[in-house]
């Protein structure tokens, strides 16, 4: 079902904060942008049955997930006057304190990018086929069932 035009929204492992800085810098030349909204998801050291989470292993139905990410982006562009929307989601292991989701949304004025960002993040949470397996300090594992 995968076609050549399907974009990949996944990053192997954690998202490097340096990459985030570089992404911001690439927008310097777009002078129509007046506002950036950035959302970063970070892995928490939740405590479960007396043990702390050491990391999360992300898995996905990748082909379908990439299509859903593309649709979420398209819907945001239809609803708000946005200059650009970039989404990066981790797959594989992301350790506690590292970043697993980076959404970057830009518009001429702040309100549009802020509103669009909230909708995009909620859609990612509810519509994209991605799953988490928590890896505990003692290497035991637990599927997250939200």
């Amino acid at each position, binding site marked *: 079902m995968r076609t050549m035009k399907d974009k990949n929204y996944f990053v192997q492992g954690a998202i490097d904060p340096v990459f985030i800085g570089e992404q911001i810098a690439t927008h310097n030349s777009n002078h129509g942008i007046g506002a950036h909204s950035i959302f970063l*998801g970070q892995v928490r050291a939740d405590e479960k049955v007396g043990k702390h989470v050491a990391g999360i292993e992300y898995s996905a*139905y990748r082909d379908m997930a990439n299509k859903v990410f593309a649709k979420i982006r398209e819907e945001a562009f239809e609803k708000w006057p946005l200059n650009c929307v970039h989404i990066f989601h981790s797959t594989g292991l992301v350790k506690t304190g590292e970043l697993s989701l980076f959404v970057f949304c830009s518009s001429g004025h702040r309100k549009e990018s802020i509103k669009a960002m909230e909708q995009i993040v909620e859609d990612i949470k509810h519509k994209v*086929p991605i799953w988490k397996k928590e890896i505990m300090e003692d290497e035991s594992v637990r599927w997250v069932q939200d």
Partner: protein
Amino acid sequence: MQINVIFFGVLSDVVGKNMLTIQDTDNMTDLKRKLITNYPDLIDYTYRMAVNQQMVEDNHRLFDNDIVAIMPPFAGG
């Protein structure tokens, strides 16, 4: 008539594999019944279904070589 079924997240642990094929079924309700007969533990889990990467409901009609994804609640982010 063959349907390809793929499992994700905790459900691949429950059935002990990522993929299997089911013969002679033409709708989701019947497919679910066959899966639960073969893997009774599935009945304890909540899941959603997609056919050829589109979300579907129980009564959805199936065709030869469809790919059915059995997916636990999504947990991205």
